[in-house]
């Protein structure tokens, strides 16, 4: 078995993914079938956020990936210029 921090990080990732999955599943799949008077609706944002938040997160991820690629490419170009 993996040791120490590896185990903690791995199980942490697993726990986070399960929490997100459960919350999101209840939000998108189960809530429409629950009576709108039920108190559980208090714990969930309006339905439009169920698409808006993943979309925003996805765009942020794309932004970071693009910035990282730009950074690496600029760094390489400066290195080649120095070598010339």
């Amino acid at each position, binding site marked *: *078995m*993996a*040791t120490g921090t*590896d*185990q903690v*990080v*791995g*199980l*942490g*990732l*697993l*726990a*986070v*993914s*399960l929490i*997100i*999955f459960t919350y*999101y*599943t209840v939000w*998108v*799949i189960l809530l*429409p*079938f629950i009576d709108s008077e039920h108190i559980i609706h208090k714990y969930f944002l309006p*339905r439009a956020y*169920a*698409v808006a938040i*993943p*979309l925003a997160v*996805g765009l942020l991820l794309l932004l970071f990936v693009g910035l990282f690629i730009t950074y690496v490419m600029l760094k390489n170009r400066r290195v080649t210029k120095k070598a010339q």
Partner: protein
Amino acid sequence: MTMTKLAQWLWALALLGSAWAALTVGALGLELPSPCREVLWPLPAYLLVAAGCYALGTVGYRVATFHDCEDAALELQNHIQEARADLRRRGLRF
């Protein structure tokens, strides 16, 4: 059978995507009950998030249950040190 994997995936995506679009827009003239329509329209976003969670969870689980062999790792590192010392003695420059 001459279709590439990419073509197959794109084909399947196009098929499922158009089915979803047709149902969501109501182009088929089906009167779906209200909760079903409410589940249907965020479905692509839901599938993406679910796939992401599955990927993250699998990575985390595999990291946590990885069969680490600490003794073998130490032994390997010792071998590497010995080999480097030996090659350095024989004149190879690192």
